[in-house]
């Protein structure tokens, strides 16, 4: 009898769920058109930003748009980052892609060209939703702090989409722990203060018998910190090794060539100082951190098991939402010149290495209502709505003049610093692989610079060679692809086609640079085989 009642309740609940689902679909399909007397249009917007606050920000923008456009329904499709690339290609090839998709993960230039609508004809015209603001009549391109470089495809010579946010990397602090450990809330402003805090944390953990690490690390977070530190020691070396150190920090081919010639090695003093610095701070992360994923490190931090974590502004709202303690953010300090004889190659503060915007949202060719999708894109990229975006998401704005939200003020781009040098994983995927395989020998308590160097040296040269080989093939493939495009543009320019001459000129510059690399990189690669 009891079992029968439970079964009945189960069926009743199931039936209720079905009715509710049906009602929701019905309301979406019929209710709005009845209100407006217009055909209802649904614009679907897909992205992979599942970090806290972002979905709320998309919802806030959608709701605001729907208030003034009641016949339009904006539907947000947040897709997990892990499956986004596969989901994307399935949607694009299947012709079922949403109207607006975030550009980045799983995107290739071919896919961009085939499945997305370029916006190049619009970038010199004002955004209609900026009317009445100080960006009224300002060309769309100039309303974004990066001049829409993040939207511009260097290969396709077209603009795709509008950016919503800017990003920087900072150190997050658990203020409760900081107060308990130091008796105050002052954030470290120098490298010495940073390592002092790490030592104080170790002492505190020992004294109170708590499992607390100074810094939460993972294979994702640790490089954000380590690369910045190591590049603080290799700036002057890079300058001596390669003529393109300033624009390219330097290029892989020149750095690899210098390595092959013996102009630098894993024993070069600057490189040794970089390794020493990485060990100096790496020892303050939890054991085995290079085996951990991004979420593991974030979890470790929000559980209150680490005082600090290095991450980007994109994690700001997630961390604040999950942590039950106040969080502060500050720059990642690097050693100052002459501050410590162990790090004699420091130049001074380092600038944020990039100021490009992100979360670029673009319209797909599959959109049945591209004009409405464009209108919503303009809306999201306008000054008042970008302010809403940054206020709700806690992320940095992308539009000129939009004020960062209170919690994102610490992420404002820092430009008054030097450009750092190179990292040991400079050559690419294989360089990164061997570096990661050896890093435990550097940062584990039993490890050392010598141990790390000896282990890395076994496969370092061959990893660089493999990266060069892959890069050589890539350059030739780009040269071949450009050939067909150049032929087409050349004929179109000769026939007076609109913008063809301008595009041809841009592609000539791009392909000349690529073709240079298509011969230089193989020459460097071959030198590794001799």
């Amino acid at each position, binding site marked *: 009898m009891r079992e029968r009642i439970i079964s009945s309740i189960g069926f009743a609940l199931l039936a209720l769920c079905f009715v509710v689902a049906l009602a929701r679909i019905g309301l979406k399909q019929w209710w709005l058109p009845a209100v407006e007397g217009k055909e209802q249009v649904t614009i679907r917007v897909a992205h992979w930003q599942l970090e806290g606050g972002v979905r709320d920000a998309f919802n806030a923008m959608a709701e605001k748009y729907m208030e003034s456009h009641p016949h339009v329904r904006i539907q947000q499709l947040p897709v997990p980052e892990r499956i986004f690339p596969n989901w994307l290609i399935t949607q694009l090839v299947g012709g079922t892609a949403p109207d607006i998709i975030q550009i980045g993960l799983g995107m290739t*230039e*071919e896919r961009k*060209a*085939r499945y997305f609508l370029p916006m190049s004809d619009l970038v010199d015209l004002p955004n209609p939703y900026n009317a009445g603001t100080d960006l009224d009549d300002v060309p769309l391109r100039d309303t974004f*702090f*990066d001049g829409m*470089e993040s939207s511009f495809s*260097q290969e*396709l010579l077209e603009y795709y989409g509008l950016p919503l946010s800017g990003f920087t990397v900072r150190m997050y602090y658990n203020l409760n722990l900081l107060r308990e450990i130091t008796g105050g809330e002052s954030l470290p402003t120098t490298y010495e203060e940073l390592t002092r805090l790490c030592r104080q944390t170790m002492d505190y953990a020992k004294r109170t018998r708590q499992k607390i690490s100074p810094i939460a690390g993972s294979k994702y977070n640790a490089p954000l910190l380590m690369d910045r530190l190591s590049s603080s020691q290799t700036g002057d070396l890079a*300058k001596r090794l390669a*003529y*393109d*150190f*300033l*624009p*390219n920090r330097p290029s892989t081919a020149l750095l690899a060539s210098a390595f092959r010639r013996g102009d630098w090695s894993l024993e070069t003093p600057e490189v040794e100082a970089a390794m020493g610095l990485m060990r100096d701070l790496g020892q303050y992360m939890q054991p085995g951190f290079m085996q951990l994923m991004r979420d593991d490190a974030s979890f470790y931090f929000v559980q209150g098991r680490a005082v600090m974590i290095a991450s980007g502004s994109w994690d700001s709202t997630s961390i604040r939402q999950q942590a039950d303690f106040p969080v502060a953010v500050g720059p990642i300090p690097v050693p100052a010149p002459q501050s410590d004889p162990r790090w004699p190659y420091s130049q001074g503060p380092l*600038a*944020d*290495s*990039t*100021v490009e915007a992100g979360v670029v949202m673009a319209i797909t060719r599959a959109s049945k209502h591209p004009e409405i999708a464009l209108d919503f894109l303009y809306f999201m990229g306008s000054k008042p709505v970008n302010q809403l975006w940054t206020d709700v998401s806690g992320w940095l704005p992308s539009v000129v003049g939009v004020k960062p939200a209170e919690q994102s003020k610490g992420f404002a*781009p820092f*430009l*008054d*610093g*030097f*450009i750092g040098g190179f990292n040991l994983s400079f050559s690419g995927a294989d360089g990164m692989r061997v570096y990661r395989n050896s890093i435990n020998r550097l940062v584990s308590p039993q490890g050392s610079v010598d141990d790390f160097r000896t282990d890395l040296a076994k496969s370092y040269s061959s990893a660089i060679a493999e990266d060069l080989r892959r890069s050589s093939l890539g350059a*030739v493939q780009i*040269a*071949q*692809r450009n*050939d*067909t*495009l*150049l*032929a*087409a543009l*050349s*004929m179109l320019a*000769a026939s007076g086609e609109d913008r063809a001459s*301008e595009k*041809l*000129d*841009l592609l*000539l*510059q*791009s*392909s*000349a*640079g690529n*073709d*240079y690399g*298509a*011969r*230089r990189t*193989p*020459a460097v690669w071959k030198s590794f085989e001799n």
Partner: protein
Amino acid sequence: MASTFQFNEARDAFVIATGDEAMRKFGEAATLLNVQPRTGGNIQRARRLFEEVARDTPPGSKLSRLSRFYIARVKEFYLAPQDIEGATADYLSLLQEKTADPLIEQGASRLVVIAAFSGGTPADRLQKLAALEKLDSLLETPAGRREFHTSMAYALLDNGGDKSRAVDHFLAADREGFTRKATAVSAWLVAATTAAEIGRNIDARYFFEKMLATYPQDPRNFTVRSLLGRLGPDNG
């Protein structure tokens, strides 16, 4: 269709197109270079079509010359092993005709790059590069001159050549005008630091200041300002 990377579809369209037969053949050949899967058969057919267009159209026509340019590209980038000697001869022959075509004039840049990474010693390569300096007089388009001078500047630096001459080439390239940010920034900053290194401070200042004025938000500008501040009077 080519602009959306639909090379296979573009090739199919050219195969069935009617009208100007030379244009049809040229279009088919140009798209065949990227039809997937890329096969030796497709490349051979593309080459044959380019040869037919070059032969069957008036010798000085754009289509004839472009076809010859693409025969050189096939020799340089598509054959295994590459026919560098053949490509070199083709590029040179086209340049000597003073085509005033920005794409065909890229042959000058190609000759520089081929010489820059050819065999022999750096001294041999510098000698080859010196012999190519005269190509400048054959170039009639800004794009042709810009890419020639840019390649020459980098080639000299890559081979340990005369840095002052490299700066001259950067200045010549800059006079023609860069419109692509990555290309411009790279050229200006390499030119500026090279000029500063050899004491040509007026030129260094020119390039650094151009960078600051054109891209004021660039994260490299703190370093640029610092280097600019260290420049003394011109010694060059």
